[in-house]
């Protein structure tokens, strides 16, 4: 933990280890001094971080763009054609390698690319050994918004957003429930009155009591359970902050408009899930959640490692095809193209929201990636990475960087973390640890 430079939990532990401490809220002003008019100054527009993650990899022989560098110096590969409309806003990184031990098909790669740390395998069960990058960033920037982070995905299953070992953030897989969570009760559009509701303060006092219970129980348990209770404590504290925020004036953001609820439940059609329709509804909600500054960190796990989703017009489940389809896998390639089309939609949804002199995407960084390169053999070389958005001018766009030395993909993660304005000495663990940014993609 020291090595990763995260010390928030240590601080918490320090608080809890004492006796008879009442843990109150930090002064609320600290969280709101950037709201309202402060956003009129473009330099203070918040930076957002996103993940677009799909399962089962790509077909590397058709993956790598031709040419390197900027603009017309490089051309999208055939698999990336669905990203044509957003080419000027993406940065493709190829030739790098996930360096964690490849001990479990798919999930080792997922742990490596999302946390820079090896997968922890205990018996038949697998968990990340360290927080995923979205949570590393959310720990630093998420506290200023109503939701520290949002996780969703049309076929996300349990997602891959980890707070730590054995602690996942369950994603929302229903557009209507995602809508209700963000824009239902508790949401206020700019200009709305602040909520005067006596129960908000009461709920906070209830959460204080719950935290007292957690502190008391903490003194009776061993080290592992202390860590588990600390995580519960974290969650409660975050809820308390959210309630406090609802009592303040909503941020004044020109682009924020409460959206209409998505229509319907998107039931399966002939046994096939409506992945595209669900994804698009949720991407629209996510973009507006960011425009309304309800969150600054959002992860879209459109499909899951080893998923066997039946995509439209495809003859078998995705995972089976990656292993069973012969030759250069035309059906798998078609699935990858469909998925990247969904990524293009997410990017465009963010780009369509004006903000300051540019748009929401300009002030965001999205990490697009998967769990393997070639699914058939669970390869972790030539690892697929497509970044989107410039992160307030930090990251080059319309750019292809090709590594010739199979560099460590954690360098990309550390670059993104630092581009979010977070100082960190190094990131990752074991062979995947690095202290270096990928300078070539920085503006």
């Amino acid at each position, binding site marked *: *933990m*020291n*090595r990763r430079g995260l010390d928030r939990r*240590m601080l918490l*532990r320090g608080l809890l280890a004492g006796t008879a401490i009442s843990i109150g809220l930090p002064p609320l002003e600290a969280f709101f001094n950037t709201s309202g008019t402060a956003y009129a100054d473009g330099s203070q527009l918040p930076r957002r971080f996103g993940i677009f993650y799909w399962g089962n990899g790509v077909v590397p022989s058709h993956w790598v763009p031709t040419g390197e560098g900027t603009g017309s110096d490089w051309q999208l590969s055939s698999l990336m054609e669905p990203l044509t409309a957003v080419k000027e806003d993406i940065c493709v990184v190829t030739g790098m390698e996930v360096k964690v031990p*490849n*001990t*479990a*098909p798919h999930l080792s790669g997922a742990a490596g690319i999302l946390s820079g740390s090896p997968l922890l395998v*205990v*018996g*038949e*069960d697998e968990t990340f050994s360290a927080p995923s990058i979205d949570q590393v960033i959310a720990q630093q920037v998420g506290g200023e918004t109503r939701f520290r982070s949002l996780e969703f995905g049309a076929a996300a299953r*349990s997602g891959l957003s980890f*707070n730590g070992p*054995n*602690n996942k*953030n*369950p994603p929302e897989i229903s557009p209507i*429930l995602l809508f209700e969570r963000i824009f239902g009760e508790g949401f206020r559009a700019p200009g709305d009155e602040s909520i005067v509701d*006596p*129960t908000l*303060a*009461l*709920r906070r*006092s*209830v*959460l204080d*009591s*719950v935290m007292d219970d957690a502190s*008391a*129980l903490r003194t*009776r*348990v*061993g*080290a*592992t*359970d*202390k*860590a*588990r*209770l*600390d*995580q*519960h404590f*974290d*969650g409660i504290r975050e*809820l308390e902050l959210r309630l406090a925020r609802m009592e303040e004036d909503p941020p004044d953001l020109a682009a924020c408009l409460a959206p209409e609820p998505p229509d319907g439940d998107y039931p399966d059609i*002939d046994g096939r899930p409506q992945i595209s329709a669900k994804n698009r509804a949720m991407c629209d909600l996510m973009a507006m959640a960011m425009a309304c500054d309800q969150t600054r960190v959002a992860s879209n796990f459109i499909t899951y490692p080893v998923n*066997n989703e*039946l995509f439209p017009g495809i003859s*078998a*489940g995705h995972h*089976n095809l990656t*292993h*069973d389809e*012969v030759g250069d896998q035309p059906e798998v390639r078609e699935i990858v193209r469909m998925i990247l089309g969904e990524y293009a939609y997410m990017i465009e949804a963010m780009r369509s929201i004006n903000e300051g002199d540019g748009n929401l995407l300009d002030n965001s960084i999205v990490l697009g990636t998967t769990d393997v390169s070639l699914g058939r*053999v*669970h*390869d972790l070389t030539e690892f697929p990475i497509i970044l989107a958005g410039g992160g307030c001018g930090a990251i080059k766009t319309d750019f292809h960087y090709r590594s010739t030395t199979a560099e460590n993909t954690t360098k990309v993660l550390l670059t993104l973390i630092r581009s979010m304005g977070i100082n960190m000495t190094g990131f990752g663990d074991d062979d995947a640890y690095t202290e270096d940014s990928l300078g070539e993609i920085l503006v």
Partner: protein
Amino acid sequence: MTSLRSTTILFALAACLGSCNGTSEYPEVEPPEPTLRRLTQAQYANTVADLLGPTVVLPTRLEPDSAADGYLTVGAAVTTISPRGAELYEDAAYSLASQAMADTAVRDAIVPCAPSATVDADCAGQFVESFGYKAWRRHVTDDEAERLVAIAGTSATALDDFHEGLGFAMAAILQSPNFLFRAELGEPDPGDPGRTRFTDYEMASRLSYFLWNTTPDDTLLAAAEAGELTTIEGLTEHAERMLADPLARRGLREFYKEQLFLYKLDELSKDPLVYTHMSEDIGPAAQEETLRLFERIVFDDNADYRTIFTTRQTSIDRTLAAIYNVPAPEREGFGLTELPGDGERVGVLGQVSVLALHSHAVSSSATLRGIFVRETLLCQPIPLPPSNANTAIPEATGETPTLRDRVHQHLTDPGCASCHDLTDHIGLGFEHFDGIGRYRTTDNDYPIDATGEFDGRPWQTFPELAEQIATHPDVPYCFTNHMFRYANGHSPELGEMDGVRDLEARFVKSKHSVTSLVLDLIVSPAYRQTAPVDTAAEPSNE
């Protein structure tokens, strides 16, 4: 019902243990340090229904369960509560509290007094103590009660309503880690200070979640209060009472559901183009069929557990009858039927649940089915393939039409065969059942050869293979190991293996009676003892 036989055994056991002065005839165990166990989704729902009655609408969205060692109940001892989970538990708590306080019948059942004013600390205190006692499975301390009464008072003042205020105290109780986690942490055994035992209240909670998958009832809490659950006699009496109650069926169904991963059937995914029988009803129906079989063997017949592999009796509905190609026993719902005596389909391994779960979405799988037999039924771990292994098997062609032809490489390449020899031969014995469990005689129009050899014993038909699995010497040990895992929330560690082996021996001696195993386990040190908690230890920084 629950067998005269097990009752007789119990009385004999209790008498013996009484005279043998404690647990001397059980081997010593060295258990690991206890850990907090989070309520699973099912446990949360059952518990809340018991606390508030059947009219309350239960929250459907809670922190998801996750499995460890195959068990959600073991996963509950390692996972934590995520920020989203805390949010969902908060929603659930207020939903329950407002329902309880708005419905006078529910309210009168849990609030033991009428308030004399909007703020009535005495009445609030009575509620906090009685409801907290049930919800936290122990007495609420004075400090805790004071804090909860203060919440009730502040809230009643703010809302100008005693009961609405009380709802906030109730929400505090239901969001507390004292409710969401089972803290079974042990105490020094007064009779043997070198040992650590679970306390009376902890034993009440352990028994209740093990046997009923819910919170202790009033009788069990009273027994804990009276100190009965730290004695062999008291434990035996209550375990027997609970096993005889219909709720024990629910509890042990949960155990078997987790043992066979039947919860995964809720998300069964098959390619409808390949399996035209596929519908969303199949997964739940298949789960119900298997659980009914287990329930019948354990409770109705108190039969030898191993008949689960060989019986031709099963309970099916119309959906399953269509797949089995037999008449549906009932027009609606499930009914008992006897499958044809000359057919291949027999026992739990011939049911859609097992056959469809251990297959791919578009095909059967000899490897997955073989792994299931080795790992789940025999507790023989199979190593994972190297992660860079090419796990594709060749396409079906004119020369290799059947799965047996196609997995040939598994069994001839020495790198593959070291493990696939252990699994694929067994799995090929299931080949007369396709990826959804329908009987077939051909694969790609070529006749299926489902004969083979299992650890040196040849079989010709599926019923013969099932018989070999049923009589495999590792089956009783493995079942005992599973029961231990479910009851204790962790896989047996080295220091506990003597205890598991001893329980296995008793299980065999009882002619594989599941209820006998449950009762033996409950009175054994492996269930009643733990290790002292190192409360000074702090989480490491790395």
